[in-house]
């Protein structure tokens, strides 16, 4: 267990740790999204369980993430179009 007792760390070390924590949090956010997407893509792409993925399952899984990103961008654009239209009228 880390020794969290003892005298406070000097400002430079505190800053170092703070930056480290921010980086780790960013990694954790990415990992969290990967878990969500794996769950989504599994439901979309995987049929019955066997000793390997079929070609169709493989390509579905390979495309799944990119199409999700594209979906997100597309919907953001559509929403902004709606808002621009509503603002102009």
């Amino acid at each position, binding site marked *: *267990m*880390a*020794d*969290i*007792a*003892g*005298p*406070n*760390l*000097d400002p430079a*070390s505190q800053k*170092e*740790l703070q930056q*480290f*924590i921010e980086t*780790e949090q960013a*990694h*954790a956010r*990415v*990992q*969290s*999204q*990967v*878990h969500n*997407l*794996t*769950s989504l*893509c*599994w*439901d979309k*792409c*995987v049929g*019955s*369980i*066997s*000793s*390997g*993925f079929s070609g169709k399952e493989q390509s579905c*899984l*390979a495309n*799944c*993430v*990119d199409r999700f*990103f594209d979906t997100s961008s597309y919907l953001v654009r559509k929403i902004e179009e709606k808002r621009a239209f509503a603002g102009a009228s």
Partner: protein
Amino acid sequence: MTSFFGASRTPTATPSSPAETAARVENLKNSIRNEVALQNAQELMSKLTEKCYVKCVPKPGSDLSSSEQKCLAQCMDRYLEAFDMINRTYVARLKKERIESQPSDSL
């Protein structure tokens, strides 16, 4: 194990040497890394169990049949494979998005 009821050294004790401070910082970093890794493993296990239960045990009986067990073992491999693929494509797409959002260098 750290005592929760107060440090064994007083807060106004003599400051640590640079080596001691560096060691403490490294220990704290390792604790954080371990915590993040543990979270990740737990999340993976939780999702894998749910997905494979759905795929392999459609009608829970009085125990797990050998075919259900075989399915579960294969399912685990498949899920880990899927996770790995998604992980790689996600990170690659993030890099691509980051590069494309940056202005290109002037000539």
